[in-house]
């Protein structure tokens, strides 16, 4: 799966859950990024 994915949530637990789901669905780990707020999301 050739998508770039950005997970934005202020809860580390929910980010980890979402990360696990997209990895199980076949996303490449190096193409999944995380941010905990809007500023970080825009920078990522």
């Amino acid at each position, binding site marked *: 799966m050739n998508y770039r994915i950005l997970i934005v949530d202020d809860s580390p637990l929910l980010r980890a859950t979402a990360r*696990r789901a997209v*990895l*199980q*669905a*076949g996303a490449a780990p190096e193409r999944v990024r995380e941010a905990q707020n809007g500023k970080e999301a825009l920078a990522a």
Partner: protein
Amino acid sequence: MTDIGANQGLVVGVADMAIGSAAKGRLVTYALGSCIGLSAFDPVAKVGGLLHYMLPQPAEQADPKTLKPYMYATTGIPLLVRKLVEAGARQDRLLLAAAGGAEILEGAANMAIGKRNRTMLRKVLWKMNIALVAEDTGGSVARTMTLDLDKGDVHIRSRDKEGLLWAPGMKVTVAKEQP
């Protein structure tokens, strides 16, 4: 699809499991009502397996030495994957498809077994870090599930429909849960 003789495929009974490679032809399991059929196939090693489990988990007082592991999701699913890995498959290549988990009985007689089987399927797979590629679950129909051990195709037959559920190369078709 209809006439699967003993020499054309292997029938997986209720609370049972079978694995095989391309030479075995097909694995088929009948009468999936609230039970769930789970197929797994490694397209590189060309080995696959089919599990037909009845219930989510054993009763707490059950003796682990005497219980039938393929009767339950919590014991059957890890064992299916382990047997396939022993037969040369790799867990990260396995393609899993599920069928069944319907609600056949109405009212008090129905203890929501289908729904509980579907929930436990998700829970066990989540823990094992494996995603389904396709499923035909829920509703109120009985299903027959077939896994082609050469091509990896999964067929479903029910009162409503008959046809290909998934084949390697198809896009992932995990549908919205039926009520």
